[in-house]
């Protein structure tokens, strides 16, 4: 199952179309890592709107993707996690800690744009 990856400006956008097997996920991870270097992308968006389940393996793989891509100097954003899926993940104890998430493609792109402009444009969380 191939996941289509498009280049949009300095970003790569991978849109998951349907349920992915473990092998599919690994393939996606490896492809993205290679492509990021190849096209010198500054950011990667993985759109998981079509996933009806994100379990421990998928979470781990997405974390790996973000980590490996950061090592290549680019930022990853996971977008489109469905409400039910988000709830299941959290109940299972998976938090995608350290990985940026946005509501959808539009938000994801906006986030990458802001991040690209420098730290003063970031939305910071306030600590009491």
């Amino acid at each position, binding site marked *: 199952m191939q996941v289509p990856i498009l280049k949009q400006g300095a970003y790569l956008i991978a849109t998951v179309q349907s*349920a*992915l*097997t*473990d*092998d599919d996920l690994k393939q996606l991870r490896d492809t993205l890592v290679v492509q990021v270097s190849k096209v010198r992308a500054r950011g990667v968006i993985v759109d998981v709107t079509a996933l*009806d*389940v*994100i*379990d*421990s*393996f998928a979470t*781990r793989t997405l974390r790996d993707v973000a980590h490996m891509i950061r090592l290549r100097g680019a930022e990853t954003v996971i977008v489109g996690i*469905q*409400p*039910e*899926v988000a*709830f*299941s*993940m959290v*109940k*299972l*104890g*998976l938090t995608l800690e350290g990985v940026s998430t946005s509501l959808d493609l539009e938000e994801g792109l906006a986030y990458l744009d802001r991040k690209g402009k420098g730290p003063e444009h970031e939305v910071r969380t306030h600590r009491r």
Partner: protein
Amino acid sequence: MRFALIADEVRVAIDCDAAIVTARQKGRELASQCGFPSTDLAVIATAISELARNIVRYAVRGEIIVRRVDDNGKRGVEVVASDDGPGIPDLEMAMQDGYSTSGGLGLGLPGTRRLMDEFEIVSDFGKGTTVTVRRWKR
């Protein structure tokens, strides 16, 4: 991959990677017929995915059965994940968060237990493992 439909029951043989997806899709379908709302469907499908993955990773081969259950008017779904694998010698350890023999997030059993309403496990060294979980409609 083979599967059989027996009225209110679905069986999926777990013998490869792709079977994990099949198991959770079939399980989800059955749960949907029971009338579970979408949040519960995601939860059940995720639990099936975790259990099926355990079978593939640790036992190579096994089976997932998803069936409707009825307890005096209370309706729900039961998932039985069984395999003839090496078994889990120390169940208590396995049920703790963070335990793993092969690195990573471990068997995900504590997490799976959190997802479902009822959780039973029978396993012993060399005797295979059977995990039974249930989720009831509210």
